[in-house]
């Protein structure tokens, strides 16, 4: 029954693609790993100021799978943040500072003494991290960049 509800809710969010792809249990994430333009635009498409579409209702009521009563489940937080902030992250990495980069570091649990190294690694590998546009590829590239850095290798598990 639970699985059926899941399928229905995912289907309600993304009428055709999601079921065919058999993407697991996150409505946003199904779009995320579909290699398409991202979930944030999907949400944005229905949120204009004072006006929301029904999709946001699904998100706030927890039926989209990666959220519970409106809050994002912890295992989805980093992926959704990257997906929703690609432009800001790429910009922050290119200068080596900024609130999107700080927020990512916080989500990944990067400790204070490693922040400078994290920012430097992000800056000098910006082109490599953002070689592709899709969120999973960005995450993979970031993981490799961290793995190549002795000081930062331990943070690869956060991705």
């Amino acid at each position, binding site marked *: 029954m639970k699985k059926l509800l899941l399928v229905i809710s995912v289907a309600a969010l993304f009428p055709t693609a999601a079921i065919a792809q058999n993407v697991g249990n996150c409505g946003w994430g199904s779009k995320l790993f579909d290699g398409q333009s991202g979930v944030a635009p999907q949400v944005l498409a229905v949120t204009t100021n*004072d006006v929301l579409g029904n999709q946001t209702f699904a998100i706030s009521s927890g039926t989209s799978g990666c959220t519970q009563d409106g809050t994002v489940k912890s295992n989805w937080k980093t992926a959704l943040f990257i997906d929703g902030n690609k432009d800001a992250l790429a910009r922050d990495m290119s200068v080596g500072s900024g609130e999107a980069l700080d927020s990512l570091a916080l989500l990944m649990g990067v400790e204070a003494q490693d922040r400078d190294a994290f920012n430097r690694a992000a800056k000098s590998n910006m082109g490599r991290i953002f070689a592709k546009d899709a969120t999973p590829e960005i995450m993979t590239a970031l993981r490799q960049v961290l793995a190549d850095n002795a000081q930062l290798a331990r943070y690869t598990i956060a991705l």
Partner: protein
Amino acid sequence: MHFLLIVAALLAPLAALGAEEAYLAQLVARARELRLAERPEWRKLLHYEPDLIGGGLHGLLDNRDFYNSPQGKTRPQAELEATLASFFSDVEETPRLQNPQCAFIARRAWLDEELEFDPVRLPLRDCPRFREWHAALNAQHLTLVFASAYLNNPSSMYGHTLLRIDARDQDERTRLLAYAVNSAATTDEKNGLAFAIQGLIGGYPGTFSILPYYLKVREYSDLENRDLWEYELSLRPDELERVLRHLWELLPAYYQYYFFDENCSYHLLGLLQVARPDLQLTAPFRWWALPIDTVRAIAAQPGLVARTVYRPANATIIGARLGTLSEEERGIANNLSLGRIPSGDALRGRPGPRAAAILETSYDYVNYRRATGKPDVPDPARLARELLVARSELNVGSQAPAVDAGTRPDQGHATSRIALGAGRRDSQSFQELSFHPTYHEVMDPEAGYVRGAQIEFFDTALRHYADGKTRLERFVPADILSLSPRGDFFQPRSWRVAGGWHRSFVRNGSEPLVAFLDGGAGAAWSDRGGRSLFYALAETALRANRELDGGYGVGAGARVGAMADLAPRWRANAYVAGVNYFVGESDQPRAIGLQQRFTLGRDSALRFDLERRREAGRQFASGMLSLQLYF
């Protein structure tokens, strides 16, 4: 003996039932004695408001399961008693269903405080879903966020407010990770007019939702280019808890959304005011609730706003960046962002910080055009990436300039205006009394408002001439004007829409109240310092009155003008306008004028208007000095 035991075992649940009923009766009696249903806490938790006619009350929430009693929407006492009864429910929590104790957790907390539930006879249930949600929010304080006006969307002309839940593990650098509480009309309507009409008559359900703040920042800052103002509220921990518990009750609820009064900002106040018993935020907003006025209501509470943070929109940041670039550097940034030159050649030999400033500006500009849907380069994503990679190879820090926040929106002039004026037209003197309930005319003091954006509703003027007649001079339900300067980087359109009734001379010599509907489109340009604005609009005009030949007129014309801030408090606007009515009654009215405004204080200004006009073959000049007061 055995028999007795069996009977006792069978009767035990019944006895328990009897005990429950007895305890409920005891609680109800005590609640009546304390007159809890009349207390402000209860009124606020159920969102009761006085009826427009009669002495009754009604709750603003419209889903039936927000109330435990079938009469709950109109009877606070019945609702309170039914709520107490519901707390004895033995429903187990599932992902789809909550026990009433959990679904109405704020009501439970307050009633428990007042009635001190006996933990044996009415045990407090664990509420795992609420508990997990509460833990995920990890709230430290609340921040009210105001998104400034956005003229291109009727639902947000007045701005918008939302609430942000700031978590303990965040700081000002990582607020993107906070959750935002948004209150909004739920609809897929894309047509602005249909939305406006449905919104006026309460045709949409309004709901509360929670989503990551970064999605809202992206929507406002990057897509709509609206500056955000964040007002951090200083609530005590117990006050914060009351708001969170009540938010939990509201998430599944809905209300009938009304654009003017029961709108998003109003309902956000309704949520916030449960923080303290003596906090009454919604009361002044019975007739209309402009988002900025709801922000003022909060800023006016002593000690409630701890501090404010300004978050400039992408376009605002680009504007500030352009101010730090030389003419030549601006040209390079523009060319780079259009992909006309490769970055290596353009920046060779420049000092690192200058090259970085140019690259950062060009990237922000590519992104701005991408977000606002201007497909003027073949592959903007690739171009953006190239610019960022070039930037990442420069070993210098961020060149983003500090952006001047200007006046906080809650510190601008108040949104209603009354004006008392005296003047002469030809040789006749007159006095004029005018009023508009909202909101900002382009000549009003600008501090705290969006530059060049005018939204005036229901502007009404009465005029008394020396010869004894007092008459309605004008009644203009809507007059909206957007003047945005164009430059190498931004090319917005300027436009105007106005409709209502005003006095005009017609060919038979009378001056009736003529219905009009004007529309205009054009452009505006600014000088480098941004103190002057030159504008030109092509206009169409419709008018109707039975004194006109055929009863109507259709025309086209133009308006050009120059508006300048001659001193910080002194603004002047000189204009020439003309229309040729060629269908219906034909006429060629012309006007040339000079308006001046001197700001006296935050809520007062002097206006001095001069105009020379030709209408229906009659020429006349007029002048008026008036005192404008904002309240």
